[in-house]
């Protein structure tokens, strides 16, 4: 059984509604290598910069560098619709991640979940995707700052990746062997 580390970045203002969830999944046995390569890849990236804030040449350079980060997949789930009754947008996104993303094929594998930031999980804490994890940590940036930053950057890159505004060589998702981008 393979063990995976899943870095989750929530899209939306810290105290506002959740509008999306991005997952960067890394084989746990390559976590240290992935962090080191992500750190090298993102060196010099301005604090808090989103994908759309970067110059085209910088985006191309990052796409080439991020290709070297060991990974299983990158997945982004947007959530523009009202949450299902009795649920929350974050819980919906987590359900979508488990059932309708590249993570679907990892069902039954061990996983440790790292959330970026310290947003309260609320009722999503009981979501099966989290309940079935070996451990769930918040504040991923304190343990794996570069992978947490890359997950957050993927969150900001999802819109430009699908709205046709960027050429392929500036699409961050192009750096990944597997991806899905869309709804829950």
């Amino acid at each position: 059984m393979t063990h995976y580390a899943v870095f989750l970045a929530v899209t939306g203002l810290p105290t506002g509604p959740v509008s999306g969830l991005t997952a960067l999944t890394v084989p746990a046995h390559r976590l240290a290598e992935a962090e080191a390569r992500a750190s090298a890849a993102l060196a010099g990236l301005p604090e808090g910069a989103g994908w759309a804030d970067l110059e085209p040449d910088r985006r191309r350079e990052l796409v080439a560098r991020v290709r070297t980060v060991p990974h299983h997949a990158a997945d982004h789930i947007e959530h523009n619709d009202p949450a299902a009754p009795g649920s929350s947008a974050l819980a919906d996104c987590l359900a979508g991640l488990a059932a309708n993303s590249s993570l679907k094929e990892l069902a039954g594998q061990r996983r440790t979940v790292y959330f970026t930031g310290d947003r309260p999980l609320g009722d999503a804490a009981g979501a099966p995707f989290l309940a079935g994890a070996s451990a769930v940590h918040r504040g991923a940036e304190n343990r794996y700052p570069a992978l947490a930053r890359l997950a957050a950057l993927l969150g900001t890159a999802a819109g430009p990746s699908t709205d046709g505004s960027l050429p392929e060589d500036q699409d961050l998702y192009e750096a990944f062997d597997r991806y899905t981008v869309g709804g829950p």
Partner: protein
Amino acid sequence: MRKRMFGAAILALGLSAPFQAAAVAQPHTPANAQALWDTCQAALDSPHESHTNPDVINVHADLKGCKKKMPHYSISVTLYKENQQVAHNSGSGANKFKARVVANWPPPKGQCHKYSATATYTITADGHAHTTTLTNHSQGEICIHK
């Protein structure tokens, strides 16, 4: 200067040479592509040495370019070494703008081979299944060094 500092940082991290080679590599592929549904395209790049995992041959099968979400999709990709199947993978889902699946194979080191790949894509929308199959080939032999 920045390049030299970057290289030094890599050495300090104990990372291997393939990183630097891959970091400057351009997207590999002449991809075969075909319109499938609405603005969505199916694409299959040419089998190549992985930029992420040294000594692995892989090929990517994509559905992309969609302005509307695919109600349901499936992708199945197979990698061949000189007509012998060596890797297969598939993926499916719903309500996505884009998706990619990869077939990976770590060949024995010290061998050179030509590779090919086929991928079958289906988007199901409004009760109709839109399907296509693409084929692509490596650009000559790919050698994995000892």
